[in-house]
């Protein structure tokens, strides 16, 4: 078979995708993007960083500066330590709860995806 003949034959070998190929693909991408944007808010890294920064800052303020007679920080001495501790603990628990929820959602989604693949 000549090169030109084969080229002509092969030009007819294109396989067309199904009619809903593009729509299905775009829907999947949109859903992926939604999941990604939702999971980003509650993803592990931002939560860990926020918690760490929050705890370190408060601990630093409470235990480093409050005993000094700094005029600028005098106002902070009036803040009671126990309510601040309670607020931080509650925030921490809230974040931990969010992480557990996120992991639960991800594992459920993976199980669902695997089941229907």
């Amino acid at each position: 078979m000549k090169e030109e003949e084969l080229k002509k034959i092969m030009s007819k070998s294109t396989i067309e995708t199904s009619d809903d190929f593009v729509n299905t693909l775009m829907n999947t991408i949109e859903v992926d993007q939604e999941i990604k944007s939702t999971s980003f808010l509650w993803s592990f890294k931002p939560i860990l960083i926020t918690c760490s920064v929050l705890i370190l800052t408060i601990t630093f303020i409470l235990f480093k500066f409050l005993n000094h007679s700094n005029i600028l920080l005098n106002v902070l001495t009036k803040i009671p330590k126990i309510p601040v501790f309670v607020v931080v603990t509650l925030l921490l628990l809230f974040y931990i709860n969010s992480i557990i929820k996120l992991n639960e959602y991800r594992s459920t989604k993976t199980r669902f995806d695997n089941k229907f693949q």
Partner: protein
Amino acid sequence: MKNNPTQQDYELIRKINKGDTSAFRQLVYIYKDVSLSLASSIIKDSSIAEDVVQDVFIKVYHKLDTFSFKSSFATWLYRIVVNTCYNQLKKQKQNVSLKVIEDTTIIISEEKNILSKADQKKYINLALQKLRPDESLLLRLFYLCELSIREIEEITGFKPSKIKVDLHRGRENIHFQLKRLLGNDLKHLL
């Protein structure tokens, strides 16, 4: 169908990277059929191949920001298609799909006196399905996508000597398969 790096592809990619999903839709329209054809060369079951191509385009959408504008988008895309398909091929067994191919051959053989464009396409794709995945993939990359040996090497990772040998075998085998399927009606394809 020549898929050289085009300004149009680059324009679309820049738009997609800015968050324009309609540009991605356009890009998919341009490459979906050739991508499916390449995938079908490796994964002989076209429905599985279509699922794999869907996965490829999702992967491409998420990785498009890593695309360097130095090379052709087509080459980049086809490399992902080929790699994903070979990985899929490792996972699955081909027994079921080969059975389906045999059945289709019988159905079409009964109607081979009428050779419409759709029939021609069916016969050609049946012949390609009978070839080894490497052979049909290389034939499509070389003759359908009109890529050079160097570009094919970049996409598949095969050595030029293997590409040339498999292309030669592919040419002989597709001629044999078409002759077997169509007999004297082979001339209707030309």
